[in-house]
């Protein structure tokens, strides 16, 4: 397909998002003898759909359902011939594609013409989410991996030669140092260094701690020594966990202690 021919199509379909499109796209034909070669390369029905869409540079936000469904079914037929185990998941997707297609074909009353009513919306959302993860997986795979791309370095230590030093510092001197360091830390807190923070990371951390103790007093989740930013992120993490119904936050009366526990932990 030539670039100039594709652009007007994309522009028109984009403007008409939510409406049935007006023009047959270029055919998505793949020679049948090529099927067997590439079947194994797909990670599932979403992967196959993405391949069909991206191969022809189609606008993922405005999928042409008819040719896509037709070609998808050709693949499924070929798969059923070779790999029965996979077919079930692919058949579910085939049914979904046909359901979407039939809904697009049915005339709708004008009142129901809301834009978010496009039956393809959920499929598009899943395709985009899968594609993001697929790209991310490729990028993670490119990070240098210990044991595959880099090796940890460690030198041989001759244990017998290692000399054990006697304890030189008197205990009280060390103690005085600690007090000084502690004081220095308290004044040094005005210099705030940027800490790497991630709410999802702290969510995992809070859940890990609740695994050990089941129930924690609200205040126990926070470590003031790590600074205000960490406190805020921890609070966000606890709130997010509560929103996802993974923890329960309870308080029996005003000013009573607040407890955070794993959701329904006591019923176990």
């Amino acid at each position: 397909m030539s670039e100039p021919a594709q652009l007007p199509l994309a522009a028109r379909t984009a403007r008409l998002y939510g409406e049935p499109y007006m023009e047959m796209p270029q055919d998505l034909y793949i020679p049948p003898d090529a099927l067997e070669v590439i079947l194994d390369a797909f990670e599932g029905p979403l992967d196959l759909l993405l391949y069909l869409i991206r191969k022809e540079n189609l606008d993922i936000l405005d999928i042409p359902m008819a040719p896509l469904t037709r070609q998808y079914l050709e693949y499924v037929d070929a798969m059923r011939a070779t790999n029965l185990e996979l077919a079930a998941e692919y058949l579910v997707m085939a049914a979904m594609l046909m359901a979407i297609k039939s809904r697009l074909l049915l005339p709708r009353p004008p009142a129901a013409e809301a834009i978010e009513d496009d039956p393809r919306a959920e499929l598009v959302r899943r395709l985009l989410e899968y594609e993001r993860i697929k790209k991310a997986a490729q990028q993670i795979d490119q990070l240098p991996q210990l044991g595959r791309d880099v090796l940890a370095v460690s030198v041989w230590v001759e244990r017998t030669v290692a000399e054990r030093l006697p304890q030189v510092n008197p205990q009280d001197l060390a103690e005085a140092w600690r007090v000084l360091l502690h004081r220095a830390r308290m004044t040094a807190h005005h210099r705030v260094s940027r800490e790497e923070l991630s709410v999802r990371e702290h969510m995992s951390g809070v859940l890990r701690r609740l695994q050990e103790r089941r129930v924690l007093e609200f205040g126990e989740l926070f470590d003031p020594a790590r600074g205000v930013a960490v406190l805020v992120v921890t609070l966000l993490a606890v709130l997010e966990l509560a929103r996802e119904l993974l923890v329960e936050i309870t308080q029996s009366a005003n000013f009573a202690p607040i407890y955070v526990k794993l959701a329904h932990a006591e019923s176990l």
Partner: protein
Amino acid sequence: MPNPSEAKRILEAALLASPEPVSLADLKRLFDDQVGADTLKNLLDELREDWSGRAVELVSLASGWRFQTLPEFQPFAEKLQPDKPPRYSRAVMETLAIIAYRQPVTRGDIEDIRGVVVSTQIIQALENRGWIDVVGHRETPGRPALYATTRNFLDDLGLRSLQELPPLEEIAKTLQLEPAPAPVAPEAANEPAAG
């Protein structure tokens, strides 16, 4: 406390003697906790500078500092080892990516995104590697396990926090909301039936 160049050599020896990342807390213990965190960081940064240009580098990871070989020398290291380390399959890497970016997640969440059943072997491979673990259970029927990535995962990929993961790409082209075109012939408004 020892003078800075001596302290650096102490750190160098301790780090080279350990195949695992050494935490800042452990490094502080080398000096009986008499060196402040900032001083320690500066010394480690200097040490890393000192080693630049060598085949081995000092890196900062989620659980501490470690000396490791540079990736470009891996092909040579592999010549001395009979078998190459295997690569993880796309299924494993996609599962890992979902856990890393969307944690805490259940197997069902992973299957929703990938559109295929997640095999037990995939989860086991990642658990055995020490890259993921169960951090809780979702209170829905069956109480599915919630998976998250571990510190080990960050260490092995050379990261200090999840925020250093490659950012998720925005895939969708943003829709251009142009004024609606004049209606085309109404009979064309239905999708042509598939052949």
